[in-house]
């Protein structure tokens, strides 16, 4: 069951490119971006480990159930709303950003709205599915996309076009003090563990996270490749000029002996899959959080019939996403993503501390109970 945790960790880590994480850190490359990266590694790992070990003390329960069990509704309901809004907005940012990328690189003649509507329709359908079937879909998609990720990464690393001096130059700036924007962006790479807050329902009661070293290792690797490969390709200055930095970097790679020469198209297919996956999960989580605020709601992992409320909520999500794409342009989407990353960081810290505190209390209580029982004997 461990692999499901790592799958959900992986897809969030890969989507960082669509969330403008490289753009933000590259913008701050001379002013604290690099030190923020270094700081984010222990911090992100710590949050991930704390959260996953605390939530495994509540077998089969998702965050809403845990909180509703222990706290009054007036306290938990707004928190659920906030999390739902956060997840929904995050996925929508990525979806809108990707529809623009498709419009720019795949088919400039198509309106990006048509692409967006098709993506939204797919996401509405997928996110209304049950949690369990989504978990299985996650596994399938990760396995399909892993070779593509490996290929693009390998192509990026093992090419003579990579300028190590440029990377070295930027890496020198790790001496600058970190800043909040880059730090929030960098910690995002580790935030896949938060999927546990809903997926925990699907995990078995005796779940224990194994191979924890994967989190810092893979996170660090992903972080450095997603920031330093573009710098290696485009140098220390030009790298800041590009809007779709990774699409351009993928376009700078060449497969001389492939069916198609441009790596860009492989990359776009890969990120189409990942974006759909990410948005599906984001909306599904948001939907589950919203549903949990209803009094009569009973969480069900794999209901036989999809409840109507799923369609209503996700349909509404789709509508809001359409309105969002109409109101917000490319530039605003980027600044919203920046703000979103910062708010997300604090929401993440809050939920981790909260769940940790509950787990700690549960542990000390049960210890007390055991002690009390043994004494009464």
């Amino acid at each position: 069951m461990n692999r499901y945790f790592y799958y959900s960790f992986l897809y969030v880590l890969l989507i960082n490119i669509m969330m403008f994480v490289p753009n933000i850190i590259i913008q701050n490359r001379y002013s604290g971006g690099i030190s923020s990266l270094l700081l984010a590694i222990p911090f992100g790992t710590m949050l991930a480990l704390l959260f996953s070990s605390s939530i495994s003390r509540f077998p089969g329960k998702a965050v809403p159930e845990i909180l509703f069990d222990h706290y009054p509704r007036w306290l938990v309901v707004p928190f659920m709303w906030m999390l739902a809004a956060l997840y929904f907005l995050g996925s929508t940012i990525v979806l809108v950003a990707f529809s623009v990328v498709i419009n720019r690189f795949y088919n400039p003649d198509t309106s990006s709205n048509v692409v967006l509507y098709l993506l939204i329709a797919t996401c509405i359908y997928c996110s209304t599915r049950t949690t369990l079937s989504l978990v299985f879909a996650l596994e399938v998609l990760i396995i399909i996309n892993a070779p593509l990720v490996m290929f693009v990464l390998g192509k990026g690393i093992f090419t003579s076009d990579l300028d190590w001096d440029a990377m070295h130059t930027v890496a020198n700036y790790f001496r600058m003090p970190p800043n909040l924007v880059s730090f929030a962006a960098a910690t995002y790479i580790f935030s896949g563990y938060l999927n546990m807050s809903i997926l925990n329902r699907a995990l078995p009661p005796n779940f224990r996270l194994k191979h924890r070293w994967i989190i810092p290792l893979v996170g660090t690797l992903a972080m450095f490749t997603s920031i330093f490969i573009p710098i290696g390709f485009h140098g220390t200055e030009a790298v800041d000029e590009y809007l779709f930095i990774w699409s351009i970097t993928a376009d700078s790679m060449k497969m001389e002996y492939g069916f198609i020469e441009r790596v860009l198209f492989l990359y776009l297919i890969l990120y189409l899959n990942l974006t759909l996956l990410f948005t599906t999960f984001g909306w599904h989580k948001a939907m589950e959080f919203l549903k949990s605020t209803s009094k009569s709601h009973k969480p069900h992992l794999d209901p036989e019939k999809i409840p109507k409320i799923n369609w209503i909520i996700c349909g509404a999500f789709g509508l809001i996403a359409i309105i969002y794409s109409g109101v917000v342009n490319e530039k605003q989407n980027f600044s919203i993503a920046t703000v979103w990353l910062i708010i997300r960081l604090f929401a993440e810290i809050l939920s981790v501390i909260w769940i940790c505190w509950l787990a700690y209390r549960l542990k000390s209580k049960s210890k007390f109970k055991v002690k009390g029982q043994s004494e009464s004997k």
Partner: protein
Amino acid sequence: MRHLIFTVLFVFIASLVLGGCGFKDIDKRFFVVATGIDHSDNPNKPFRVTLRLAVTSPKIEPGAGKSQLETIDAKTIAEGVRELKAYVDKELDFGHCKIFMIGEKLARKEMDQAINWMTRRRDIQMIANVTIGHPTAEAILKIQPKNERYPGNTLFLSFGKEGTDSSYTVTEYIFGMRKRRTEKGIDPVLPIIMPENETYRISQAGVLNKKKLIIILSPEETQLYNQITNKYLKSSLGGNVEQDPYVLAVGRIQSRFKIKNNAQGKPVVEMRIKIHGLLEEAPKLVFDKDWASIEQELAKQYSKSVVRLLKKFQRQGVDPIGFGLKYRATHYSGGDKSWQEWQGIYPNIEFDVQTRVTIEGTGLIK
């Protein structure tokens, strides 16, 4: 039953999207295979845009590649391309354009606008080659080589390693050009295409500073530049030892450099080059001679010519090898200071080039 009706309806609705993409079929497109941008001497319309359009044909055989040329003078490149659309019956598509050629005159003046246009346009590949056309890009594009299989492929097969693998040809892509144009500490180098009896000669390179073309290297200098910036380059190394001509077919060449302070405290570029190769031309019975002395003599001459080339770059204030970037990478001193230091150091820096030539054999004869 109701389920089925809904499914069928859904499929119909979904298929509506298919037709409405504004997508143009492949037979309604003109594929641009090479783009030339020249200076036109007309102050109102300074850019002359030349497009080489592929005439698609089902025949694939040498000489079957036909193309059509369109030229226009315009105020800006983008306007020129848009205006050219009125000259042709199909949609222009830059997705397969692998060659962007800048006329020498424009390159000597100012090429900012051309490079910006290339990178900003979304359908242009970042892996297209950027080149300089001598005397003009238009003159080069007018040439229709006789042995071309596909329209325009003679030009781009010359670059990279798929077609010919010439040690005299420099290859630069759009992303690399953009990188070098903005990077502090490395300057662009572009191949120069010259006309030669109905075909092309690409044996020289032009070194640019951040704005314009500064020097044109001779074929020998171009090969030297290629040798010290590439790793596995099939090339040659010539020299005379005791009046006898020697030519080494280089199989592997490796160079690395450091920027150091020498014993007097003066900054020095320390370059170490290792060359392995077979003798291709040598006097009789060279097999019995002392190879070490030949190697040393060849190495000495090679080092000297490298220093001459580097000094030439230094005199013109250009840095195509990337010494400045190396200095920035290895001498961090906060903010932008190391770059400013380097600008003071570079004009007076000394070069210490040492080569080690290894002769692996004398070919098939003694």
